[in-house]
Structure formats: C-alpha cells, structure tokens
C-alpha cells in the first residue's frame, strides 16, 4: 500500500520495500519549460545542485526530462537523508564557482550521448516540447542570476513531490526548499499544419510518433504496434534488426507513442513500406486478438512483481505532480484485463490521425497519404531586397518585421516576433531559428547588402534571444569566389630555388620578346606606320612581353619584402 505523507511541506509517497532504501525528489520543470536561448538551464541547475551531494560522480542520480527533473538514489537511510539534504542545500545556494566547469561537462555529455530525436522539433517547432531535439544552446550565455531566477520559479516546495521505497521514512529527513507554486505543464505548440505528416530523415531508419489520449488501451496499442512491427519487419521480412515502440505520458492527459525500425541501406524502401502497412493494418482494424491478449498478459505479469507498488512510485509521484489520474495496481490490473481489440483499434485511429513519420533519406511518404511537413515558409517578408553575389535565383529580403531568403519555389521566413533564437558570429553571420523550426542562415559576404542591415536584424530580434558564437576560422567563412583573397601562404625557404629558376626563364622570354618588339616598333615608326596589321602584331608582341615580365617583377618585389 502506498502511504501519502508530507515532509517539510513536500507531498511524499511512501511504499514499504525490503533492503536498501530508494528515494526520489521530482520537480515539475524540464526542457519543455525552457526557451531556446535558455535551453540547457534545467540540466545545468540539476548538475550544479548535485555537485556537493558527494555522489555527483554518478550521473544517474539526476535526470532532466521534458516536463520533470528527478533526483534519485538507492542507499542506506543516512545516504538518503544526506543526499536529499545536499540537493536541497545545493538548490538553495548553487555552487556558482562550478558554473563554467559544469557547462563544459554538459557540452561533453551531449557529444558523447549521441543524436537526439528530430521528431519533437518537427512536431512542436523550436519551443516547448520541441526543445529536446535541440542542442543546449543556452549554456554559453547563462549567468548566475539566470540560474537563481530559474530555481526560485521552479525548484520549490510546492512544485515538488518526494517518493520513498524502504522499510520506513528515514529519521532526520529534511527538505529545505523555498516556497513557490505548482507549475502546470506547458501547453503544446504545433509546427505541423496537417497530420499525418512526414519528413525525410538523414539515415536509413524509420521513426514514427503519434499523440493519443492517455489510457491503458493506448499503452496496449503501443505494445501491439511493437509486436506487429517486429513480426513483419524482422521475423517475416528480415529487413530490420530492431523494431520497437515506447509509450510516454506527456503529463497533460495525452501520451506520445514512438516507434522505431532500423534498416540496411538496400532494404530501407521495404522497411518504410512495411512500417506504413503495419500502421495501416491497425488503423483499419485488422488487429490480431492474439496480439492484444499477448501484450495484455505481459503487462499483467509485470504487475505481479512482489514490490510492484515501490517500483511504480516514480510514475505515481509524477502523476501527482502533473495532476494526472494515478491507477492503483489493482485498478490497472482490472483495466488491462478489460482492454479489447476494439479499444486498441480506436487508439490506432487516433494515432493515425496525429502521426508523424520520419522516412529514410531519399524517400518520401506522400504516396501513402502523408502530408509533407513544412520545410518552407508560407509567406515572405516585406522589405529591402538584396541579390546574392553568386546565385541569381536567390534573394534576401530584410523588413521591419521579418527576414526572408526567397527562392523560386520556396522561402524561409523568420518573423522577429516568432524568432526562437538567433546565433550570431563576430564576422557578421547570423542564423535565425523561427518558433516553427524554420532556419534562416545569413552569410553577409555572400549578399550585395550594406553591413548595417546586420544591425537591423540584431535589433529586430532583440538581445534576449541572441546566442553569441565564438569566432570562426577565417578559411571556413563563405565568400564569393571572385572576391576570394589570394592570401597565398608565404613560400618556405625551399621555394627559393624554384622561384629563381622561374624568374630566370620568364625573364629570358620577356627579354627576347622585348628585343624583338623594340626594333620592329622603330622600323614601323620610321616607315610611317602605313600598314595597320603591323601595328596589331606589334601590340600583341608588347602585351606578350608584359605578360612574361609581370610575374618576374612580382616575384622580385615579394623577395624584397621577405628580407
């Protein structure tokens, strides 16, 4: 049985469990609460709060998710008391001397953790639930006062729930947190004008997500989808090694069903086709009742774990924190046992209507009735128009409210008011990311525009959304081909011999040509220049002489400079 108590004003769930004590303190704040210029702030707070816990070596003691942040551990009663006490103390007074170090650690962590899913970005855009797709771009600009403000708003007594699984509530457990308010989960945004939708990914796999009303039947649907995908794509087709799904409540009465299947490059077409067919089969009600039974039974079996109440505590705490219904084990058992194929079918219809599909690279899903997720803006900015220095098909438009890069059949527009963030480089390059996920990258050297326009952009977006970037290697800055500076690296000493030989040879040719041109010119002048062909010939000779003489002069001057 789960017991609801309160510790220092924090709602606490306790379930009896043998052995070491497990506990977790969950706050209702996560990446979805951030904005793009602040992205990473929750994660950074989590790291800093853990620093003095004495357990910061074990990163699994902290977790920053989309709508929650979780500090948890398993240990002796005194470990629990010590750890949670230090987390609260850390939050009360973040060790700011560690700020830069922890930022570095987070940057390293993101590099080693590998790619994030692009699905949230395509579904929600560059805000709210879409932010987990983005790198933690806010880290560089976060200052101590930003972190303190974040903690005061979110890491509070009213915005937390504690869970404990153990023999008893450890003696002396204190949670010294600031008072605050319970924060509702963010309202979902949308970057998809139409669903079901698709976009092309950059690998061979197929990834799918759908947003459905949270229910026990929906969790069974996720299990049935996994079984069907595994059977079709792996067991029968042999196209995939992995075919899996997950079911994640979003905290607002809805849940995200995500499915993934990998593929060999030569089989990616078949994986996409097979994936689409499995989704359609469920969507049109061809659901094997045996599949439903198997998933249901597996879920029921999992509930037979002797300490199931304790194992479900983190989920229970999260439900409490987000104001969601929490089922007891008995209620869940009864609901699972009652799930029918018809209920799963109803979820499948909902899933099909909200589907977002990432297809393997160089493939599409328009043939299957999916709409293309937008990769281009609907409208273009009104304003001053500038030409590209190399590409006549493209134009840049900078206006008082928006900026666009316009091509014949597409357009990228970011309205300053709907700009999630703007990366800015010291050389003038700018990259604006719209709330809808549209990216506009501007290389000033490539456009025939006055440099002041960059200032107009900076002012339009406003400093609060600037993401200053470190200076780029000059060689990597794009410039128009014609204007490329001939910044030839100085020749090493070994170049001397070659230079001398070249100078001698070129000089001899120039001398020969000059000796030929001079007497002929004199003859022509003396003869009165009657024949115009002679003049043309002489002109050519003179130009040729110049052509050979010029590099000799240049080489001589360079050698003089070097000395």
């Amino acid at each position, binding site marked *: 049985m789960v017991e609801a108590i309160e510790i220092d004003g924090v709602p606490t769930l306790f379930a009896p469990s043998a052995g070491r004590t497990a506990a977790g303190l969950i706050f209702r704040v996560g990446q979805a609460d951030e904005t793009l210029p602040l992205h990473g702030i929750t994660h950074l707070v989590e790291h800093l709060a853990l620093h003095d816990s004495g357990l910061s070596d074990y990163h699994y003691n902290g977790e920053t998710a989309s709508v929650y942040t979780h500090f948890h551990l398993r240990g002796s009663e005194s470990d629990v008391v010590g750890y949670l006490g230090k987390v609260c103390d850390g939050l009360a007074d973040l060790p700011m001397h560690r700020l830069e170090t922890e930022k570095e650690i987070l940057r390293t962590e993101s590099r080693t953790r590998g790619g994030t899913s692009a699905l949230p970005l395509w579904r929600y855009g560059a805000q709210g639930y879409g932010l987990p797709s983005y790198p933690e771009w806010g880290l560089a600009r976060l200052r101590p006062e930003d972190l303190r403000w974040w903690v005061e708003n979110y890491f509070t007594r009213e915005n937390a729930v504690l869970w404990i699984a153990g023999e008893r509530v450890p003696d002396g457990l204190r949670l010294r947190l600031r008072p605050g308010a319970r924060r509702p989960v963010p309202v979902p945004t949308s970057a998809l004008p139409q669903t079901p939708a698709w976009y092309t990914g950059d690998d061979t796999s197929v990834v799918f997500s759908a947003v459905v009303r949270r229910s026990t039947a929906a969790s069974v649907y996720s299990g049935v989808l996994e079984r069907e995908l595994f059977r079709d794509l792996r067991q*029968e*087709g042999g*196209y995939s090694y992995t075919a899996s799904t997950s079911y994640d409540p979003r905290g607002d009465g809805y849940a995200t069903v995500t499915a993934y299947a990998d593929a060999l490059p*030569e*089989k*990616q*077409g*078949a994986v*996409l*086709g*097979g994936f*689409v*067919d499995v989704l*359609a*089969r469920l*969507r*049109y*009600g*061809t659901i094997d009742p045996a599949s439903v039974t198997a998933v249901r039974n597996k879920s029921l079996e999992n509930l037979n774990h002797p300490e199931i109440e304790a194992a479900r505590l983190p989920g229970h705490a999260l439900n409490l924190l987000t104001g969601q219904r929490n089922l007891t084990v008995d209620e869940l058992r009864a609901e699972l046992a009652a799930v029918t194929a018809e209920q799963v079918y109803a979820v499948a219809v909902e899933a099909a209507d909200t589907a977002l599909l990432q297809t393997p690279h160089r*493939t599409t899903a*328009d*043939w*299957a*009735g999916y709409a293309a997720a937008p990769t281009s803006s609907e409208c273009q900015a009104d304003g001053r128009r500038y030409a590209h220095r190399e590409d006549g098909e493209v134009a840049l438009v900078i206006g008082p409210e928006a900026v666009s890069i316009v091509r014949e059949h597409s357009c990228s527009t970011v309205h300053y008011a709907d700009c999630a963030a703007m990366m800015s480089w010291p050389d003038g390059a700018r990259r604006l990311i719209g709330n809808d996920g549209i990216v506009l990258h501007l290389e000033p050297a490539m456009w025939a525009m006055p440099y002041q326009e960059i200032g107009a952009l900076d002012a339009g977006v406003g400093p609060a959304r600037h993401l200053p970037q470190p200076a780029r290697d000059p060689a990597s800055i794009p410039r128009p081909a014609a204007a490329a500076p001939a910044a030839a690296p100085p020749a090493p000493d070994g170049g001397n011999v070659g230079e001398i030989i070249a100078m001698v040879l070129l000089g001899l040719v120039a001398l020969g040509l000059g000796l030929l041109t001079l007497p002929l010119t004199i003859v022509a002048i003396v003869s009165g220049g009657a024949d115009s062909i002679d003049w043309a010939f002489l002109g050519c000779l003179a130009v040729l002489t110049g052509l050979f003489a010029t590099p000799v002069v240049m080489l001589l001057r360079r050698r003089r400079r070097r000395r």
Partner: protein
Amino acid sequence: MTIIPAAAVPSFDRAAPFPEVQAVQAWCRQGDWDSVARHFAQLPTADAVYFNARAVAEVPGVTTFAGEVAQAQPSAILPKLLLGARAIELAWEARTGAQAQHVSQEQFAEMHEFLRFGEERLLEVTARDPGNGAAWAMRIVNARGLELGQAEARRRYDRLAMHHPHMFFAQTQLLQQLCPKWGGSWEAAFGFARQCAAAAPEGSVNALLIPEVHMEYWATLRGADRDNYLRRPEVLREVAEAALRSVLQPSFRPVYGWVSAHSHFAWVFSLAGDHRRAAVHFRALGGFASEYPWTYLGDAGQQFAKHRDLALKEG
C-alpha cells in the same frame, strides 16, 4: 484450322474472349453496382479478380461510379480496389508509353498524382484484407510507377505470395520491376521467371514468364544480336519446354491470361523461324491476341497477321 479470314486483324480487346468480363464492363457503364459486386464475389482466384478489375478500369466513368459506392460503404473493399485499378489506367495513360526521357515533367506529375490517389485506396484494401492478391498485385504496379525501389516491390510480392504463391499477374508485374530498365538485373529477372515457372503446377499459365523474360532481353539487343537471340538453341529449348509445361498441357484451361500466353509463345517461335511450333499457338488463339509483344515489331495487328499467315502456311 482458323475460322477467320487470313488477312483479318485479331481482336486485342482483353475482354473479347471472356463474355463475363464484357458483362461486368457493361454493368459498370450502366451503374449496376449489385451485379458488379455479385460478379466479383464469385470469382475463384486472385488472378481472376485482378484481370476483371483491370478490365473494368478501362471503362470511363468508373472513378465516379466506384467513388460514390466507396463513400456510401466506407469499409467496403471492392469499390476501393476498382478505384485503385482505374487510377493505374489513368496514370499510365498520362505518362504515355514513351521512354522516360520523352515524358514531360507535367506528365510525370499527373501520373504520380493518379498513382498516389490509387495507392492510398489500395493501401487501405490490403490493410483491411491482407490476403487480397489483386490489390497487392496492383500495388506492385504502383511501386514501379512511384519508384519505391526494388526492395519495396519485392516486399509487396512476398506479402502477396504468403497467400497466393502462384499468382500469375503479380509475377508478371514483379518481373517488369526486376528487369534492368526498372532498376533490377537480368540475373534477378531470369532467376525469378524460372523459379516461378518451375514452382507453378503443370498446366498453369505461369510459365509464360519464360517467353516474357526472353522477350524483355531481346528488346534490349540491337542488330545481329537481336536477330539471332531467339534462334539460339538454348533459348528456343527453354521456351518450348515452358509451352509444354503450360498452355500445351492437357490439363491447361483457358484461364485469364491464356491469350497473352499463346501470343508470347507464337511470337517467340515466329521470330525464331520455328513456324511449325508457332502455328500451334496461332491456331489456339483463334481471332484473339494480346498487343504485346507484337507492338515491339511495329503495328501490332499487321505484324500479328503477317507472322500468323506465314506460320499457318508453313507450319
């Protein structure tokens, strides 16, 4: 002996040899859905459903007729199958039979629009009825038109073959995809044709894949290579064996596809100069023929008549 005058051009209408197909086409023109549905319900094989659906799809106005029924009966299979078949007809009409480099962007766009419309309906049919061979066979056609690639076309055939291991019309459609012109290889095309022909029961029409694949190969050759190819003893022997295993078996029945089968055999033997063998197939055809492969030689009617007359005189 043939009963039609020697100079007569054969009928290339695929419904002509089958009164019941003409009847179902007429019901479609008249908008008699109940009769259409009854007719399809009693068809014995996936090949029969496929053949009838493709024949019905030649009737203009089927999109509206079947579309109305599909709207009234959202979960019904047949109207969507017919919509899918009609879309294939319209798509390939839009594309025209020209080689890809002579098809305009607009023509391709129109083709793809029809194909997507049909594919969506057929996707629903195979989702509701995973054993619907006719729909899977049409989806193999669509995989080619939509350029979904070798692996996907093959997957569609494999899904179909789980229910219908010897569906001839599906095999002949996949064979197209397996040819190099659609991104396949001769190894795959010949391998598939031989495997299907060998696996099918004796007296079935499937061995037609053998003259078909030789015809496809022949069509890629030029000059003397082309002239000599079908005369090569190993080619002629393989085609003759295929004829013996299929249309010349006593157990062979004039199933849908029989006209195409005799046409192909007659064509190969004619071009190989084996008029005696060709005559057998010309006689069996009576006044019917399939346009393919005769169109490869020029005007299909004239070419057919010319080779038939030669065969009947010499053979």
